[in-house]
């Protein structure tokens, strides 16, 4: 039955070449993508190479200034700051990606379910969302990590839980905005099940919305991870994390204020990068904006 329907080109392939062209003209997209890429490369590289090992403390090399030997100098324990920033990038990216991934994997199906099944189920999903929103996010993350113990995995779970309602809301909103559209009616007439329609027609059409939201959530997750690690509830030493570095720098701020600068800049660069990337992607992918540009 499906094969007898005329096949329309998928919406996503809408002038793909010109989108790339526009992308390179969008300042937000170019700056955001560059910053995000730099952080990503630093994080990935740190898996197999850093200038120095970060778990070796050498007090004789403590608080060295910037030099060709130590690019950003060393901290009060003699660790190379550049190496720690690289490992910190890895920590941030891993935590943010998994936390946002948890939010999407659970939140999107819930949101779609709420949109498809009106009534009790929708009410239940949306009220649960409201409930999670009522808990100030960092406060609950502090609560969760303190009950289950500090550490990277618990930080990921804590941040991930607060991404669930965000994606549920976006997915439901996107799905509802599509309801009543002709291509959905056509798909239903062709005898497809709700599940198949959601999979083949709704998800591809709300993918743009989800991608933009995911980029923004990534930057929020990086900030939350830094906050938790700053409080000593996130990543534990000897693994490096930017928040933890800031915490350690704070005790030294009178003698070595530069120690507080580097991790701060690293957080700002990455958050700014993902925010700009999200802005740029929204301009490029939002059909309303696309019409305005064309």
């Amino acid at each position: 039955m499906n094969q007898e329907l005329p096949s329309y080109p998928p919406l996503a392939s809408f002038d793909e070449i010109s989108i790339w062209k526009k992308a390179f003209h969008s300042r937000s997209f170019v700056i955001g993508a560059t910053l995000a890429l730099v952080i990503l490369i630093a994080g990935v590289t740190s898996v197999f190479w850093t200038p120095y090992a970060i778990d070796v403390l050498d007090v004789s090399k403590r608080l060295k200034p910037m030099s060709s030997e130590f690019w950003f100098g060393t901290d009060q324990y003699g660790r190379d700051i550049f190496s720690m920033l690289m490992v910190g990038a890895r920590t941030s990216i891993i935590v943010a990606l998994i936390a946002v991934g948890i939010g999407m994997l659970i939140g999107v199906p819930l949101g779609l379910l709420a949109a498809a099944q009106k009534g009790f189920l929708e009410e239940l999903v949306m009220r649960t969302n409201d409930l999670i929103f009522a808990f100030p996010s960092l406060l609950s993350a502090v609560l969760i990590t303190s009950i289950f113990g500090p550490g990277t995995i618990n930080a990921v779970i804590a941040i991930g839980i607060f991404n669930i309602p965000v994606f549920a809301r976006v997915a439901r909103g996107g799905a509802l905005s599509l309801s009543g559209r002709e291509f959905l009616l056509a798909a239903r007439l062709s005898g497809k099940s709700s599940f198949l329609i959601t999979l083949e027609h709704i998800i591809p059409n709300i993918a743009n919305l989800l991608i933009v939201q995911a980029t923004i959530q990534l930057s929020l997750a990086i900030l939350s991870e830094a906050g938790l690690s700053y409080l000593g509830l996130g990543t534990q030493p000897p693994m490096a994390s930017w928040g933890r570095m800031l915490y350690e720098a704070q005790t030294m701020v009178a003698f070595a204020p530069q120690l507080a600068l580097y991790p701060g800049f690293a957080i700002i660069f990455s958050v700014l990068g993902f925010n700009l990337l999200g802005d740029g992607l929204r301009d490029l992918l939002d059909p309303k904006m696309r019409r305005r540009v064309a």
Partner: protein
Amino acid sequence: MLWFAFLRLIGLLTTLLAASLVIFVVLEVIPGDPAEVMLGLNAQPDTLAALRAELGLNAPLSTRYVNWLLGMLQGEFGVSYTYSVPVSELIGERIQVSLPLATGALILSTVIAIPIGVYSARYHGKVIDTGIMSIAQIGIAIPNFWIAILLVYVFAIVLRVLPSGGFPGWDVSFFGSLQALLLPVIALALPQASILARVMRSALLDVLHEDYIRTARAKGLSNKATLWRHGVRNALIPVLTILGLQFSFLIAGTVIIENLFYLPGLGRLIFQGITQRDLIVVKSSVMLLVALTIFVTFLVDIAYAAIDPRLRRRA
């Protein structure tokens, strides 16, 4: 309007009840034995038994939950395990720091953001607008605890004009207390102001395209009067939403900022309660903050409906 407020009030109460259940489950059911959590793994069996009896842990879960709720309704929050004082007393003390801190930050961010957002929208597309919005974009990315560390360095260590932390108490030194809160308020407010300025700008830009703005100009109202009387007033609705949301961010932000500045506020109370495993303190203070957040959301909803009659019908 009254019917709308009534429906919202029921929603508020249900959310409160659900939130209390979540907190109870997270702090009392999931850890298994709260007494064991509070005393650590090496606790003597008789100390454990004594604490269990003191906390009423031998009663069934449902009784404990109901007792906790009923107690809170009567202002009875239990006795702190580490401080040996009633939790209500602790909260009453600590809120004198947290409330001025959060409201101060909220007011400061609004006072900074609204004029900047309006200014930026007015010169939309000009260099000054791009400049302001670039700064705001960076401001959003800055963690408040990093600003705090820099502020401490500049004002407390280099210039030595403000304290780097601590809190003298309102009755000891009113001026000193204000001084102690100044840097924390700024650190909390700046990132929020960046967000708010962007919201103000885009909300105003949306409004300025409306027909009634053209009408106002056509009837001879000056540009400035149109902007403030018809533009800004209508643009304040989305700004109000963000303000409501920001309150919850500010509450969470106090946990970090109060720790950084050694301020004896609610956020620090919760954090210390958690590290000292004083679950009685944590349970009630978290409930209080969550209740506060829910209540602010409720107020925003009501304010909405008061401003925009169309929203009342949707309930």
